[in-house]
Protein backbone atom coordinates (compact mmCIF):
# COMPACT_ATOMS: atom_id res chain seq x y z
CA UNK A 1 0.00 0.00 0.00
CA UNK A 2 2.87 2.35 0.90
CA UNK A 3 4.36 1.80 -2.52
CA UNK A 4 1.11 2.74 -4.21
CA UNK A 5 1.00 6.16 -2.54
CA UNK A 6 4.51 7.06 -3.50
CA UNK A 7 5.67 8.83 -6.60
CA UNK A 8 3.19 9.64 -9.30
CA UNK A 9 0.25 8.09 -7.49
CA UNK A 10 0.79 10.29 -4.50
CA UNK A 11 1.19 13.30 -6.75
CA UNK A 12 -2.15 12.65 -8.48
CA UNK A 13 -3.86 12.00 -5.20
CA UNK A 14 -2.77 15.42 -3.91
CA UNK A 15 -3.90 17.10 -7.16
CA UNK A 16 -7.28 15.36 -7.01
CA UNK A 17 -7.76 16.29 -3.35
CA UNK A 18 -6.89 19.91 -4.12
CA UNK A 19 -9.34 19.92 -7.06
CA UNK A 20 -12.19 18.52 -4.97
CA UNK A 21 -11.49 20.99 -2.18
CA UNK A 22 -11.32 23.88 -4.66
CA UNK A 23 -14.60 22.92 -6.33
CA UNK A 24 -16.29 22.54 -3.00
CA UNK A 25 -14.92 25.84 -1.82
CA UNK A 26 -16.12 27.65 -4.92
CA UNK A 27 -19.79 26.74 -4.28
CA UNK A 28 -21.80 29.40 -2.53
CA UNK A 29 -22.32 28.75 1.11
CA UNK A 30 -25.78 27.23 1.68
CA UNK A 31 -28.36 29.64 2.90
CA UNK A 32 -29.13 29.09 6.56
CA UNK A 33 -32.46 27.30 6.81
CA UNK A 34 -34.96 29.44 8.69
CA UNK A 35 -36.51 27.22 11.31
CA UNK A 36 -40.28 27.38 11.61
CA UNK A 37 -41.17 28.80 15.00
CA UNK A 38 -42.87 26.28 17.23
CA UNK A 39 -46.60 26.96 17.43
CA UNK A 40 -47.63 28.31 20.80
CA UNK A 41 -50.60 26.99 22.75
CA UNK A 42 -52.48 30.10 21.67
CA UNK A 43 -51.66 29.29 18.01
CA UNK A 44 -52.98 25.74 18.46
CA UNK A 45 -56.18 26.98 20.04
CA UNK A 46 -56.71 29.67 17.42
CA UNK A 47 -56.34 27.07 14.67
CA UNK A 48 -58.80 24.76 16.44
CA UNK A 49 -61.34 27.58 16.78
CA UNK A 50 -61.03 28.36 13.08
CA UNK A 51 -61.62 24.68 12.22
CA UNK A 52 -64.61 24.62 14.55
CA UNK A 53 -66.20 27.72 13.02
CA UNK A 54 -65.41 26.53 9.49
CA UNK A 55 -67.17 23.22 10.17
CA UNK A 56 -70.15 25.11 11.55
CA UNK A 57 -70.36 27.44 8.55
CA UNK A 58 -70.05 24.60 6.04
CA UNK A 59 -72.74 22.47 7.72
CA UNK A 60 -70.22 19.73 8.53
CA UNK A 61 -72.27 18.37 11.41
CA UNK A 62 -69.83 15.69 12.56
CA UNK A 63 -66.80 17.97 12.24
CA UNK A 64 -68.60 20.66 14.19
CA UNK A 65 -70.21 18.60 16.93
CA UNK A 66 -67.01 16.52 17.22
CA UNK A 67 -65.33 19.56 18.77
CA UNK A 68 -67.53 19.30 21.86
CA UNK A 69 -66.33 17.06 24.71
CA UNK A 70 -68.74 14.26 25.54
CA UNK A 71 -68.81 15.40 29.18
CA UNK A 72 -68.89 19.09 28.31
CA UNK A 73 -71.47 21.58 29.53
CA UNK A 74 -73.28 24.21 27.51
CA UNK A 75 -75.30 27.30 28.35
CA UNK A 76 -77.84 28.17 25.70
CA UNK A 77 -80.20 31.10 26.18
CA UNK A 78 -82.33 30.11 29.14
CA UNK A 79 -81.23 26.50 29.48
CA UNK A 80 -78.50 23.88 29.54
CA UNK A 81 -77.72 21.78 26.48
CA UNK A 82 -75.71 18.59 25.96
CA UNK A 83 -73.53 17.45 23.09
CA UNK A 84 -75.98 14.72 22.18
CA UNK A 85 -78.92 17.11 22.33
CA UNK A 86 -77.11 19.60 20.14
CA UNK A 87 -76.10 16.85 17.71
CA UNK A 88 -79.67 15.72 17.31
CA UNK A 89 -80.94 19.26 16.89
CA UNK A 90 -78.28 20.44 14.42
CA UNK A 91 -78.40 17.22 12.36
CA UNK A 92 -82.14 17.71 12.00
CA UNK A 93 -81.69 21.30 10.83
CA UNK A 94 -79.01 20.46 8.27
CA UNK A 95 -80.70 17.27 7.05
CA UNK A 96 -83.88 19.28 6.60
CA UNK A 97 -82.16 21.64 4.16
CA UNK A 98 -81.32 24.29 6.72
CA UNK A 99 -78.01 25.33 8.15
CA UNK A 100 -75.70 28.16 7.25
CA UNK A 101 -74.22 29.77 4.18
CA UNK A 102 -71.63 31.73 6.16
CA UNK A 103 -70.03 31.89 9.58
CA UNK A 104 -67.52 34.64 10.26
CA UNK A 105 -65.54 35.19 13.40
CA UNK A 106 -64.19 38.47 14.76
CA UNK A 107 -62.73 39.91 17.95
CA UNK A 108 -61.18 36.58 18.99
CA UNK A 109 -59.54 36.74 22.40
CA UNK A 110 -57.71 33.83 23.99
CA UNK A 111 -56.41 33.05 27.47
CA UNK A 112 -54.30 29.94 27.98
CA UNK A 113 -53.41 28.04 31.12
CA UNK A 114 -49.85 27.92 32.50
CA UNK A 115 -49.83 24.12 31.98
CA UNK A 116 -50.80 24.60 28.32
CA UNK A 117 -53.75 22.22 28.25
CA UNK A 118 -56.55 24.65 28.92
CA UNK A 119 -57.80 27.78 27.19
CA UNK A 120 -60.80 30.02 26.95
CA UNK A 121 -61.76 31.73 23.72
CA UNK A 122 -64.29 34.49 23.24
CA UNK A 123 -65.37 35.99 19.97
CA UNK A 124 -68.18 37.46 17.96
CA UNK A 125 -69.80 35.14 15.42
CA UNK A 126 -71.83 36.45 12.49
CA UNK A 127 -73.79 33.89 10.51
CA UNK A 128 -76.10 33.77 7.53
CA UNK A 129 -78.81 31.16 7.82
CA UNK A 130 -80.54 29.18 5.11
CA UNK A 131 -84.12 30.23 5.62
CA UNK A 132 -87.10 31.55 3.71
CA UNK A 133 -87.60 34.24 6.33
CA UNK A 134 -85.44 37.22 5.30
CA UNK A 135 -85.55 38.58 8.84
CA UNK A 136 -83.90 35.44 10.16
CA UNK A 137 -81.01 35.26 7.68
CA UNK A 138 -78.50 37.30 9.67
CA UNK A 139 -77.60 36.61 13.26
CA UNK A 140 -74.77 37.66 15.55
CA UNK A 141 -73.70 35.86 18.69
CA UNK A 142 -71.40 36.49 21.63
CA UNK A 143 -69.46 33.27 22.01
CA UNK A 144 -67.32 31.76 24.76
CA UNK A 145 -65.73 28.33 24.54
CA UNK A 146 -63.46 26.83 27.19
CA UNK A 147 -61.15 24.18 25.73
CA UNK A 148 -59.27 21.31 27.36
CA UNK A 149 -56.49 19.32 25.69
CA UNK A 150 -56.99 15.66 26.49
CA UNK A 151 -54.93 12.89 24.90
CA UNK A 152 -53.45 15.45 22.53
CA UNK A 153 -56.79 16.75 21.25
CA UNK A 154 -58.51 20.05 22.04
CA UNK A 155 -62.21 19.82 22.78
CA UNK A 156 -64.79 22.15 24.26
CA UNK A 157 -65.39 21.57 27.95
CA UNK A 158 -67.87 24.43 28.27
CA UNK A 159 -69.74 26.52 25.73
CA UNK A 160 -71.81 29.65 26.31
CA UNK A 161 -73.46 31.78 23.69
CA UNK A 162 -76.14 34.39 23.46
CA UNK A 163 -77.54 36.22 20.49
CA UNK A 164 -76.73 39.90 20.18
CA UNK A 165 -80.02 41.71 20.09
CA UNK A 166 -81.20 45.27 20.48
CA UNK A 167 -81.95 44.37 24.08
CA UNK A 168 -78.29 43.56 24.78
Amino acid at each position, binding site marked *: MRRVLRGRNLHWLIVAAFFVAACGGSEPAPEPVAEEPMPTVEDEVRERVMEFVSAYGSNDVEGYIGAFAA*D*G*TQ*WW*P*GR*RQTRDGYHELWSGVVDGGGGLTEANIS*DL*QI*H*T*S*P*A*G*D*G*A*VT*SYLLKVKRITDDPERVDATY*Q*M*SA*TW*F*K*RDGEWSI*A*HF*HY*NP*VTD*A*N
Partner: protein
Amino acid sequence: MRKIVRLALALAVVALPAIGVAGASAQDGAALEAEVADAVAQLTETYGANDIEGYFALYAPDLTWWGPSGRWDKAKYLAYWTEYIESTGGLSSAENSDMQIAVAPGGDLAVASYILSVSRANPGEAVPTVTYQMSPTLVKRDGSWTIVHLHFQIVPEPEE
Protein backbone atom coordinates in the same frame (compact mmCIF):
# COMPACT_ATOMS: atom_id res chain seq x y z
CA MET B 1 -48.74 -23.41 39.77
CA ARG B 2 -45.97 -21.55 41.65
CA LYS B 3 -44.98 -19.87 38.44
CA ILE B 4 -48.51 -18.62 37.94
CA VAL B 5 -48.66 -17.29 41.51
CA ARG B 6 -45.30 -15.57 41.06
CA LEU B 7 -46.43 -14.06 37.79
CA ALA B 8 -49.65 -12.78 39.37
CA LEU B 9 -47.70 -11.26 42.27
CA ALA B 10 -45.29 -9.61 39.87
CA LEU B 11 -48.15 -8.14 37.86
CA ALA B 12 -49.78 -6.87 41.02
CA VAL B 13 -46.56 -5.16 42.10
CA VAL B 14 -46.28 -3.50 38.68
CA ALA B 15 -49.95 -2.49 38.59
CA LEU B 16 -50.24 -1.10 42.15
CA PRO B 17 -48.37 2.16 41.57
CA ALA B 18 -50.53 2.86 38.51
CA ILE B 19 -53.70 2.29 40.52
CA GLY B 20 -52.29 4.56 43.21
CA VAL B 21 -51.58 7.32 40.67
CA ALA B 22 -55.07 7.07 39.21
CA GLY B 23 -56.57 7.30 42.68
CA ALA B 24 -54.40 10.29 43.56
CA SER B 25 -55.44 12.04 40.35
CA ALA B 26 -59.11 11.63 41.18
CA GLN B 27 -58.45 13.02 44.65
CA ASP B 28 -56.52 15.93 43.17
CA GLY B 29 -59.37 16.58 40.77
CA ALA B 30 -61.90 16.68 43.62
CA ALA B 31 -59.63 18.98 45.64
CA LEU B 32 -59.19 21.31 42.68
CA GLU B 33 -62.94 21.42 42.05
CA ALA B 34 -63.44 22.30 45.72
CA GLU B 35 -60.91 25.13 45.38
CA VAL B 36 -62.74 26.49 42.34
CA ALA B 37 -66.10 26.13 44.08
CA ASP B 38 -64.71 28.13 47.01
CA ALA B 39 -63.45 30.87 44.68
CA VAL B 40 -66.84 31.11 42.94
CA ALA B 41 -68.67 31.11 46.28
CA GLN B 42 -66.41 33.95 47.39
CA LEU B 43 -67.21 35.79 44.17
CA THR B 44 -70.93 35.60 44.82
CA GLU B 45 -70.58 36.37 48.52
CA THR B 46 -68.59 39.57 47.89
CA TYR B 47 -70.91 40.49 45.03
CA GLY B 48 -74.02 40.16 47.16
CA ALA B 49 -72.38 42.02 50.06
CA ASN B 50 -71.44 44.96 47.82
CA ASP B 51 -67.80 44.39 48.77
CA ILE B 52 -66.23 46.05 45.77
CA GLU B 53 -62.63 45.46 46.77
CA GLY B 54 -63.14 41.81 47.66
CA TYR B 55 -65.22 41.20 44.57
CA PHE B 56 -62.84 42.74 42.07
CA ALA B 57 -59.81 41.11 43.70
CA LEU B 58 -61.07 37.85 42.18
CA TYR B 59 -60.80 39.19 38.62
CA ALA B 60 -57.52 39.10 36.69
CA PRO B 61 -56.18 42.41 35.36
CA ASP B 62 -56.41 40.95 31.84
CA LEU B 63 -60.07 39.93 32.27
CA THR B 64 -62.16 39.52 29.13
CA TRP B 65 -65.90 39.83 29.45
CA TRP B 66 -69.06 39.14 27.50
CA GLY B 67 -72.10 40.72 29.08
CA PRO B 68 -75.41 42.23 28.03
CA SER B 69 -73.56 45.33 26.77
CA GLY B 70 -70.95 43.43 24.78
CA ARG B 71 -67.23 43.50 25.53
CA TRP B 72 -66.07 45.09 28.73
CA ASP B 73 -62.81 44.91 30.64
CA LYS B 74 -62.05 45.01 34.35
CA ALA B 75 -61.60 48.77 34.51
CA LYS B 76 -64.93 49.48 32.84
CA TYR B 77 -66.73 46.95 35.02
CA LEU B 78 -65.15 48.37 38.19
CA ALA B 79 -66.20 51.92 37.28
CA TYR B 80 -69.74 50.81 36.45
CA TRP B 81 -70.25 48.67 39.52
CA THR B 82 -68.78 51.24 41.92
CA GLU B 83 -71.12 53.90 40.57
CA TYR B 84 -74.08 51.49 40.69
CA ILE B 85 -73.52 50.64 44.35
CA GLU B 86 -73.00 54.26 45.31
CA SER B 87 -76.17 55.38 43.54
CA THR B 88 -78.53 52.49 44.36
CA GLY B 89 -77.15 50.68 47.39
CA GLY B 90 -76.29 47.65 45.26
CA LEU B 91 -77.67 44.25 46.12
CA SER B 92 -79.46 42.77 49.10
CA SER B 93 -78.67 39.13 48.24
CA ALA B 94 -76.92 36.88 45.73
CA GLU B 95 -77.18 33.09 45.52
CA ASN B 96 -75.77 30.39 43.25
CA SER B 97 -77.46 27.21 42.09
CA ASP B 98 -76.95 24.41 39.55
CA MET B 99 -73.16 24.66 39.87
CA GLN B 100 -71.05 22.62 37.45
CA ILE B 101 -67.25 22.77 37.42
CA ALA B 102 -64.67 21.29 35.07
CA VAL B 103 -60.90 21.44 35.60
CA ALA B 104 -58.35 21.07 32.80
CA PRO B 105 -55.95 18.11 33.02
CA GLY B 106 -53.07 20.34 34.11
CA GLY B 107 -55.12 21.52 37.08
CA ASP B 108 -54.60 25.26 36.54
CA LEU B 109 -57.61 26.26 34.41
CA ALA B 110 -61.22 25.65 35.29
CA VAL B 111 -64.65 26.69 34.14
CA ALA B 112 -67.74 27.00 36.29
CA SER B 113 -71.31 27.34 35.05
CA TYR B 114 -74.24 28.13 37.28
CA ILE B 115 -77.32 30.22 37.89
CA LEU B 116 -76.92 33.42 39.87
CA SER B 117 -80.03 34.95 41.43
CA VAL B 118 -79.75 38.45 42.86
CA SER B 119 -82.06 40.89 44.60
CA ARG B 120 -81.55 44.62 44.32
CA ALA B 121 -81.37 46.58 47.56
CA ASN B 122 -83.44 49.45 46.23
CA PRO B 123 -84.97 48.41 42.95
CA GLY B 124 -87.03 51.55 42.40
CA GLU B 125 -88.63 51.08 39.02
CA ALA B 126 -86.24 48.28 38.05
CA VAL B 127 -87.17 44.63 38.46
CA PRO B 128 -86.37 43.60 42.05
CA THR B 129 -84.73 40.29 41.21
CA VAL B 130 -82.59 39.18 38.29
CA THR B 131 -81.39 35.73 37.29
CA TYR B 132 -78.24 35.21 35.27
CA GLN B 133 -76.59 32.32 33.46
CA MET B 134 -72.94 32.52 34.51
CA SER B 135 -69.75 31.12 33.00
CA PRO B 136 -66.51 32.29 34.60
CA THR B 137 -63.24 30.70 33.46
CA LEU B 138 -60.52 30.74 36.10
CA VAL B 139 -56.75 30.30 35.92
CA LYS B 140 -54.54 29.46 38.87
CA ARG B 141 -51.75 32.01 39.04
CA ASP B 142 -49.24 32.15 41.89
CA GLY B 143 -51.35 29.65 43.81
CA SER B 144 -54.63 31.57 43.59
CA TRP B 145 -57.62 31.17 41.30
CA THR B 146 -58.40 34.28 39.32
CA ILE B 147 -61.12 34.90 36.75
CA VAL B 148 -59.70 35.55 33.28
CA HIS B 149 -62.98 35.44 31.37
CA LEU B 150 -66.62 35.94 32.30
CA HIS B 151 -69.61 35.33 30.08
CA PHE B 152 -73.01 36.05 31.56
CA GLN B 153 -76.46 36.84 30.38
CA ILE B 154 -79.82 37.50 31.92
CA VAL B 155 -82.00 34.41 31.70
CA PRO B 156 -84.43 35.28 28.94
CA GLU B 157 -88.15 34.88 29.26
CA PRO B 158 -89.20 31.48 27.89
CA GLU B 159 -90.38 31.69 24.29
CA GLU B 160 -94.09 31.03 23.84
